[in-house]
């Protein structure tokens, strides 16, 4: 059974249709990449899954259950975690504090939550920075903190919103390794990304969105050679009309 | 019945003046996205400025505009520049820094109590002026002349400010800045200067309000507090940031205060105004004219 399924999901803002009858599905343990030009509706689709706003039409099904319009904090308890493209650390607090907030999703005791947080930090080789104030972190570490916090909520589905944007090439490689490692832990991962090199290397399958519609889907190789995709990225004049 | 009409008319007139006192608050919120808690205090300062201008020169009260408006513009401009700007710089990423509320509250306390120390607690009213106590008789009804003048000024000012924001280059730059600070500064607008100007403008408009009030209203150190809270209520009723909303909100409050005493003791009308305020806040926080915003 699929862990996540989008059935004809449509999201309209006033007259603008940001996502247009988008359907996709993700199997357990899969890494699905979602790409598309700027303003294609990737983030809107992402937010529909993450519960930021409900879809106008269609269904979002998680683990066999329709989750349309459920609040982010309820989704989190169900096992969906996300990161933010523009990182949002609790700036005045330490890394450990930040991750402990996430760990409280599964427990109420502080000692237990903190132990859990340290475990997650160790998993990500991040525990040496546990006492650093999160506003003092580098951008790469902030992105890592986003993932650590999300991970501490024990997600089954992890939604990553451009976690590699703004990173140096070496840091991108490291992030790819981290994401692969998370999948090995049995987490299903949906990645929105602009950095083609990374997403091609990472994804089992890729979905391409353009003007809110799915225009291609398949393995990275297949998608990369798809005519519609090239057209979408390079403009119509290069395509065969 | 005749009293009801008379009270309604006087309520509309006084309400327009209330609207004018709140106009500066809404201008400042519209641009800076912060509630200026020192607003009533700025009105108080303006009233003292107007009071002394008129009583020392003996001119017609409305001629005080020539002095009060530029003085208050400069006052507001530098108040923002010196006291509030540092907060904006420190909290760049915060959209509505609550720290500004606190700092402006500090300004309120300082100025109100300095005034108390300097001028004493006494109520001051202009000795005699061409507008004092004048009434127009309309059949059996009496309409207050200074309130009529004030209401006309209020509507004219609101229209002028609206025109300024819609049609002039500076006005548009200010509006652009209010919509998106970062984008505006990228397109070459100096956002802090814009804030200073908006704050100055809001304060200057408050100066106009003070000039309309002084001919019939007492000037005293804590006069601002009355208008401060009334101002908050008016701008929330009308929609924070909306210029016509401020005038309409003011008129609503004015009518309640003026007509209410026909049916209940006067102090109860105050409670009704607070109740209405909370009701609007609960039901439609964007107010009557405000744009929907991410509450």
């Amino acid at each position: 059974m699929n862990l996540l399924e989008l059935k004809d999901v449509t999201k309209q803002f006033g007259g603008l249709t940001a996502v247009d009858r988008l359907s996709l599905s993700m199997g357990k343990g899969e890494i699905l990449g979602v790409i598309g030009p700027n303003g294609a509706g990737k983030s809107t689709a992402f937010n529909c899954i993450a519960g930021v706003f409900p879809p106008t039409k269609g269904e979002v099904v998680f683990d066999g259950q329709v989750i349309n319009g459920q609040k982010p904090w309820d989704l989190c308890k169900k096992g969906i975690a996300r990161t933010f493209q523009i990182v949002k650390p609790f700036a005045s607090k330490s890394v450990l504090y930040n991750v402990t907030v996430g760990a409280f999703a599964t427990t109420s005791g502080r000692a237990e939550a903190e132990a859990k947080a340290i475990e997650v930090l160790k998993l990500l080789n991040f525990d040496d920075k546990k006492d650093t104030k999160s506003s003092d972190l580098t951008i790469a570490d902030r992105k890592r903190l986003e993932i650590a916090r999300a991970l501490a909520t024990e997600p089954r589905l992890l939604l990553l919103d451009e976690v590699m944007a703004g990173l140096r090439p070496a840091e991108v490689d490291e992030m790819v390794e981290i994401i692969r490692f998370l999948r090995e832990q049995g987490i299903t991962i949906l990645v929105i990304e602009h950095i083609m090199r990374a997403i091609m290397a990472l994804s089992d399958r890729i979905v391409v969105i353009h003007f809110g519609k799915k225009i291609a889907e398949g393995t990275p190789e297949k998608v990369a050679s798809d005519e519609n995709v090239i057209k979408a990225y390079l403009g119509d004049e290069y395509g065969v009309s | 019945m005749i009293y009801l009409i008379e009270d309604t008319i006087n309520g509309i007139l006084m309400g327009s003046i209330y609207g004018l006192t709140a106009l500066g608050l809404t201008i400042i919120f519209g641009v800076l996205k912060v509630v200026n808690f020192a607003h009533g205090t700025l009105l108080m300062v303006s009233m003292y400025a107007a009071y002394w201008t008129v009583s020392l020169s003996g001119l017609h009260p409305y001629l005080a505009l020539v002095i009060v408006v530029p003085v208050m513009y400069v006052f507001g401009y530098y108040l923002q520049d010196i006291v509030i700007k540092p907060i904006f710089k420190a909290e760049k990423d915060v959209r509505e820094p609550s720290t500004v509320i606190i700092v402006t509250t500090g300004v309120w306390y300082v100025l109100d109590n300095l005034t108390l120390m300097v001028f004493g607690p006494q109520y001051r009213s202009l000795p005699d002026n061409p507008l004092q106590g004048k009434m127009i008789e309309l059949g059996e009804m009496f309409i207050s002349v200074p309130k009529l003048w004030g209401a006309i000024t209020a509507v004219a000012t609101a229209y002028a400010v609206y025109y300024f924001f819609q049609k002039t280059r500076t006005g548009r730059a200010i509006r652009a800045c209010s919509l998106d600070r970062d984008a505006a500064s990228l397109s070459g607008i100096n956002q802090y200067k814009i804030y200073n100007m908006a704050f100055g403008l809001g304060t200057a408009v408050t100066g106009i309000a003070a000039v309309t009030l002084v001919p019939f209203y007492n000037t005293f150190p804590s006069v601002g507090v009355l208008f401060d809270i009334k101002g908050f209520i008016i701008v929330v009723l009308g929609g924070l940031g909306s210029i016509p909303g401020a005038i309409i909100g003011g008129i609503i409050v004015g009518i309640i205060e003026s007509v209410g005493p026909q049916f209940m003791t006067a102090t109860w009308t105050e409670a009704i105004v607070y109740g209405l305020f909370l009701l609007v806040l609960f039901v439609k926080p964007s107010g009557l004219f405000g744009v929907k915003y991410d509450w």
Partner: protein
Amino acid sequence: MTGKPITGTGDNNTPYETDDAFLDRSALARQVVKDTINKVLLGAVLILVLALPAVITSPTWLHIIVLIFFYAYLTTSWNMVGGFAGVLPLGHAVFLGIGAYTSTVLSLQYGISPWLGMFVGGILAVAAGMVIGLPTLKMRGAYFALATIAFAEGVRVMVENIEYLGPFKLNGPRGLQIPPLNIGWGDFMFSSKVPYYYIILVMLLIILFLTWAVSRSKLGYYLTAGGEEPEAAQALGVNVSRAKVIAMALSCFFTALAGTFYAQFSLFIHPKSTISLDISFEIAFIALIGGRGSIAGPVLGALLLRPVSDLSRIYFGDILPGMHLVIYGVVLILVMIYQPRGLQEPLTRIYDRVVNRMAAGFIKGGDK
């Protein structure tokens, strides 16, 4: 140094100490010494405040100190929602008023002990807090602040205008006088200031302990997270509005308890002395200057500001009315511009430095 490790860090196995292990252990030793110093100082302060009425016998001074503790208590209650939850309530005096009026009416009209009335007032304050908090705590920024002001002012105007609320006599603007007939613990009424001193001290210690406990609990983490980055907190499973509502309920309850204390302490309450905007603002000022969201901040704020207000009222009251409010205002502006996290931050730094130096001194001394 003796060769024995302070804790079982496992370096018994190593034939000789590495630099790292040595550093770890000396850091650990310093930590232990620092903790001890902290505990000793805390104990000393505790003994000092417990013994204070034996030293200070002047009722005037005791009165001032009681008010300092009273404001420290109020501000610490305020801090639960105003500090940790990151919102700005500016009408907290209404809950103080609800507490004061509830226990006073119950005791005057029905002979119910204020100790019991205190908790009835607390529960009523929670109900009132929910009326105003449930719809507005979801909103951002200034709206909550404005709503709390309007609510408090609305209630004050109402109380000033009614003699009776149903069967309950509120006596309008004249307020309620509590005749000092039954002096003693059962009726929460004393002829000396000393019992009041100990009552407010215990109340303060309880609220401080509670704040400490909350700040280390899931609720505390959720409040801080929701206050700093609501969206991120929600994505991590935090129902931000619910956390704020809980904090508001706690805050209202404890604020109301102070109302009963105030009524019994002054034996006279009226709308302007309880539900006043000035008190609401003073509470917020103390918290902000001391440092909102920290445990020490409110106490520090009250310690620094209350004497300013009391002394300037005593000494400048006639010549310079409002002097203390000018000082409050100036301090507030300066603190907000230069120390936005309140005075507790630099003071904590200084305190830490002193303790560190003391710890270093002790360790060196011990080595000899």
